């Protein structure tokens, strides 16, 4: 028979709890006490145990859904009549933590997926349980012809960017950098095939090491130092926005970094769900140069302290040794969380980044 699994009342202040991951696939057996899914509450991420033994028949709530306590989030197929508790011996214990992805002592670093797996929007719409889907349903009732269905990824991007823009006091620094050394290096390196982003990723990773405050995050009114050594690169895949993690770029060459980025982007395009999840990073890089943008102000990807916007590379008139010269330059814009970093420190970081880029 079918048993409904409901969201427990796990939040301490609000009513809603965010689903992060399913730990059991549809069709898999599960035992009472085994971790069934992972949630983020207002206080922590935690695993939630199954209240019954059976087979998972349906996952109704999807990753990144904010779910009210009491809402049905899954259906279990259970043998025989409903039993509230089986023959659990006195010392059985659920395997807590066994799938936690972050270090146990640093649970506050767990961040919600900003780019969750594609949610099945048709399945969600029929449940009517989740606040945001309820709103969507109301909208579509009013204006069915003109409503464009929102992908799960776009819902997540929208929610997180709104949260960022409304709660993080951004300030912005803008500069430009001489691109000639990068251009020469790129020609030398691999006949001009290295992704431009790779140069910026390597330079940023090096500068971050010298400016550790830029890798901090703001959590519960405190500045937490939890450097990940990861630089995120924003990637557009068929109109959806994802962030590709690049690890340890400071000790790799742009060629190596380029292949990491290309490989990840390729996997994303092929629909690899692993890359669609968010991976904690210290900073995100977003490059609109290819679209001929001269300058823009990006929104920080929480809980990171800053985001670097890269604009188009173009020949510009500049002054070199008192002479007018033409030089290829790129505009950079850095958006920074003022709760974590002050202007002077961020400016020094940006200055160091310019030096790194100009010394390729």
């Amino acid at each position, binding site marked *: 028979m079918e048993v409904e699994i409901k969201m427990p009342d796990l939040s301490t202040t609000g009513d809603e709890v965010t689903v992060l991951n399913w730990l059991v696939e549809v069709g898999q057996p599960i035992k009472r006490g085994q971790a069934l899914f992972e949630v983020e509450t207002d*206080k922590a991420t935690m695993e939630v145990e199954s209240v019954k033994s059976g087979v998972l028949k349906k996952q109704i709530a999807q990753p990144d859904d904010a779910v009210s306590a009491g809402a049905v989030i899954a259906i279990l197929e259970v043998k025989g009549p409903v039993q*509230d508790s089986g023959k659990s011996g006195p010392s059985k*214990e659920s395997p807590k933590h066994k799938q936690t992805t972050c270090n146990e002592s640093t649970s506050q670093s767990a961040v919600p997926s900003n780019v969750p797996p594609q949610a099945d929007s048709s399945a969600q719409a029929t449940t009517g349980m989740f606040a945001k889907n309820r709103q969507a349903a109301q909208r579509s009732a009013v204006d069915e012809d003109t409503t464009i269905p929102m992908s799960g990824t776009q819902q997540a991007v929208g929610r997180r960017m709104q949260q960022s823009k409304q709660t993080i006091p951004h300030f912005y620094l803008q500069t430009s950098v001489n691109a000639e050394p990068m251009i020469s290096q790129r020609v030398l390196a691999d006949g001009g095939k290295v992704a431009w982003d790779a140069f910026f990723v390597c330079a940023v990773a090096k500068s971050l090491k010298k400016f550790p405050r830029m890798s901090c995050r703001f959590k519960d009114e405190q500045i937490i130092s939890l450097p990940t050594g990861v630089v995120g690169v924003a990637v557009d895949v068929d109109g959806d926005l994802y962030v590709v993690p690049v690890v340890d770029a400071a000790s790799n060459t742009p060629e190596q970094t380029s292949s990491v980025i290309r490989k990840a982007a390729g996997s994303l395009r092929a629909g690899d769900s692993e890359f669609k999840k968010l991976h904690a990073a210290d900073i995100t890089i977003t490059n609109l140069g290819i679209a001929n943008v001269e300058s823009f102000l990006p929104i920080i990807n929480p809980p990171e302290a800053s985001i670097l916007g890269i604009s188009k590379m173009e020949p510009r008139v500049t002054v070199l040794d008192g002479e007018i010269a033409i030089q290829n330059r790129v505009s950079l814009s850095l958006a920074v969380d003022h709760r974590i970093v002050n202007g002077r420190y961020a400016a020094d970081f940006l200055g160091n980044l310019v030096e790194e880029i100009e010394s390729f």
Partner: protein
Amino acid sequence: MTQLATNISIGRLSGYDHDFLLRLYEQMVQIREFEEGVKYLFLQGSMPGTIHQCQGQEATAVGVCSALNEDDFITSTFRGHGHALAKGLSMEEMLNELYGATSGCCKGKGGSMHMGNMSKGMVPAIAIVGGGIPLASGMSLAFKMKKTSQITACFFGDGATSEGAFHEGITLAAIWNLPVVFVCENNLYGASTRVDKVTRLKKLSDHADSFGIRGETVDGNDVIAVYEAARKAVEESRNGDGPVLLELLTYRRTGHSRRDACHYQHTDEKKEWFDRDPIDLFGRALTQLSGIDENQLEGIRDRITQQFEEAVVVAQKEPQPSLDELTTDIFA
């Protein structure tokens, strides 16, 4: 260092009759089953409110309460289900209380954090950390002034030892030589803060020196060790030899509350303590006694599971207080 048992030798069980030992086991199993059952009711969304559970700490409640007389009293904390069951409250009156029913032990108005039954020697639990300590001293002062032979066993956690109420309450009990046993269940964490981050004492029982009373640290997962230490302390305090501070070393197998993911307990530490589960430790020793086997213990567990399940069905249908009862029994 206090020796932490990895097994209980049967030599230590000789001299106790089997009925007594099986009762200790049954009480611990009852606490575990109650807490596990309540956990799933909470996860199902059937149980209102949050709950603070004591899986893993069964031996402290059972060992201490078994050393008390029926008319002795205990004070308890927000983590009080085990104390209540060990002091003789029934699973039924407690489940009814958790569901807010008028048939609950506090007529449905106390809930998880205020379990109690005066007729069974338990004042409703005091959820403020350390709040029960001055209260226990006051109750014991009353016993002394009335010249009854009752005593109070006062349960609190390691976190309470940093509260002013701990020092004030025990100081009064010490100078007035009150019949009270202070029972510190040191489960190593005050909410999420490990005990060694808030004190330089290696043993919390060393606080006793500053009050001029006797202190003792005991393996709180060894129910026989707890019982024997408690019996001695109860006897002393009842004889007018003054209060005693017992520190019982134990570990909770769950988060601080149901909403606590408990990420702060380290894997190695958890394994070490889970391997010393109080019920397993004692159960293994019992089955080595002639005349007791695993089937008998399983029978106990099955009986309690069934009793719990039946009690849940009843509790969910029990009547709730009516609106005109809103201010009855409310004093402030």
